[in-house]
């Protein structure tokens, strides 16, 4: 299945928005974290500034999010991992509340309690976790609920290639295949798990080859390309909706930034990211749209400005929102 014009435009525009979001965060995140405003001797202070704590950004990995989410409805579930923004944006999680959460504000998705690795948006059926390998079991559960209720909703678990060596991955694959759950496992192979290269952590080259061991189809997408992901996901989502069961998709994608912001990245060959950026999937899709007559300079400019404005508005909303009261920390252990 090839994407419609509307789907192509949506994927392009959403990738632009994700990239702008992540690049904005990369800048905002550094506020207050650098000398001379930090403890003497520090190069960086992770706990300072308006957005403290760890920050994992997904610039470069946009095709995985949009290629899959282009097929999803609001009643489909997405479970992400510790690098969740691209999935959240592609699933329709509102930018304002998501950003406010990362600033720890009372208006955030979790009233500031969760932070960037723990975004919960029940209205858009989105959640994520900072524990590697934790996305698959809950996605199986959402799929199980859909199946029990007889709806044709599906669930997607996104995770990195590093997560495929966790027991939870293998247990979930078996469970999903055994129970024919409408779930799609989507692995983003960005080559690294922090500093550990896939070749050091994984006994085979393609995780999608592991699908056969569980009796489900495995699809490998070799290009960090939204349309290629879209096509693979089309098959997998259709299979899940029809009740035929799960699929494992693995996409070779690229991480342009550090594992987390502040990562010295000494494990990377020099110049690697510059090379990766030459194959940027956003201008590539833009060129395709132009060839199809779906985009020209003016439209591109307008679309980019609109994305930038939405992102800027979200950061503005987050900054201006109030912090929760300290004692609010005691609320919400139970409801």
């Amino acid at each position, binding site marked *: 299945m090839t994407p419609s014009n509307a789907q192509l435009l949506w994927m392009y525009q959403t990738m632009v928005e994700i990239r702008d979001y992540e690049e904005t965060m990369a800048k905002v995140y550094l506020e207050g974290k650098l000398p001379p405003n*930090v403890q003497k001797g520090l190069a960086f202070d992770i706990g300072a500034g308006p957005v403290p704590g760890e920050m994992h950004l997904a610039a470069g990995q946009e095709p995985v999010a949009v290629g899959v989410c282009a097929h999803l409805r609001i009643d489909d579930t997405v479970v992400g991992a510790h690098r969740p923004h691209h999935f959240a944006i592609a699933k329709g999680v509102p930018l304002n509340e998501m950003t406010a959460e990362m600033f720890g504000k009372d208006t955030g998705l979790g009233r500031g309690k969760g932070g960037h690795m723990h975004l919960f948006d029940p209205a858009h059926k989105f959640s994520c976790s900072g524990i590697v390998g934790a996305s698959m079991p809950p996605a199986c559960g959402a799929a199980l609920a859909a199946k029990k209720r007889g709806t044709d909703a599906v669930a997607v678990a996104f995770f990195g290639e590093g997560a495929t*060596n966790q027991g939870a991955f293998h247990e979930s694959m078996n469970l999903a295949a055994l129970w024919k759950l409408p779930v799609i496992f989507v692995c983003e192979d960005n080559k690294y798990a922090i500093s550990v290269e896939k070749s050091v952590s994984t006994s085979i080259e393609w995780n999608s080859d592991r699908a056969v061991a569980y009796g489900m189809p495995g699809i490998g997408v070799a290009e960090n390309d939204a349309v290629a992901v879209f096509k693979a996901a089309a098959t997998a989502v259709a299979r899940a909706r029809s009740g035929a069961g799960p699929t494992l998709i693995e996409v070779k994608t690229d991480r342009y930034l550090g594992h987390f912001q502040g990562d010295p990245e000494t494990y990377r060959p020099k110049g690697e990211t510059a090379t990766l950026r030459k194959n940027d999937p956003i201008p590539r899709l833009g060129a395709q749209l132009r060839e199809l007559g779906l985009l020209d300079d003016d439209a591109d400019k307008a679309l980019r400005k609109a994305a930038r404005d939405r992102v800027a508005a979200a950061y503005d909303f987050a900054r201006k929102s109030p912090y929760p009261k300290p004692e*609010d920390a005691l609320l919400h252990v139970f409801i």
Partner: protein
Amino acid sequence: MTRKLTMAQAVSEAIAQEMSRDPEVFVMGEDVGKYGGIFSATSGLLDKFGKDRIMDTPISETAFIGAGIGAAADGMRPIVELMFVDFFGVCMDMIYNHMAKNIYMAGGNIRLPMVLMAGIGGGYNDAAQHSQCLYATFAHMPGMKVVVPSNAYDAKGLMMQAIRDDNPVVFLFHKGIMGLSWMSYFEGSTNEVPEAPYTIPFGEARIVREGADVTIVTLSQMVQKAVLAAEELAAAGISVEIVDLRTVVPLDKDTILRSVRKTGRLLIADEDYLSYGLSGEIAAVIAENLDSVALKAPIRRLAVPDVPIPFSRPLEQFVIPQVSAIVAAARALVAAPQPAISLEETHA
């Protein structure tokens, strides 16, 4: 020779010296190689010892911690890093049902010389899954020695002791005292460390500071907070004695009792969860010895008030006891009315 080291440098030096001495010692964990450990506990070791002894693992905690147990049972001395203690959830069966119980179930017929080390603690807004201490959880389950250093000097000696111990040792370092270049830390944790190898026996608490009015029993990063609080309190005329537990298992009850007998007032400052944990255990040590300890005021506990660690800064600061909370609690202890019945009267 003595020089100042950060706690991270002290830990990696201890490991390096033991690895040089004993070919059976090796390290496994995520990002322990090129990265040198996310919290620099294995910094520089890959270059010294190569990748056969400093092994980057897949993100497969059950497999590599379990492999540590197997290698230890076979006589090797693995040091296995679980990056954040919070991740024990994915591999706890290997830890508490096997690492902790095998010696006992074998009737003492096997040795398990394994060190499981992990980063603990919050204070830098890493939220609920990356900020816990959890030492009391390990301590609650029999079969693991639990080591929680507060400074570089202790960390080196305790790590050497841990590697040489024939039992499983859980070695928990607080991220906020490792002296990392990317996280603010308490400078008191960076101190003078002899270059020559040395060990510090387990079960010996350290009196960090002698005092007459209040005993603060504490550990890990909270020791450094207590030191700052004690300085502030001293300026207000309150004399504080600080007991740094150093190991939770074994627990140095004698030192705790001796100190509280002297001061008559006990504040437990803890960064773990409040209920069913370390602070309750210390209070119980006193409660069980009230026939020989004359308290001048009820015991006070500071700990995380039974909520997950929230992300947002004001919330996190509220739930993790700060220097100001230690000061306030110590002041309240000293100001508390003396109990109606004194020990002498009871005994009379």
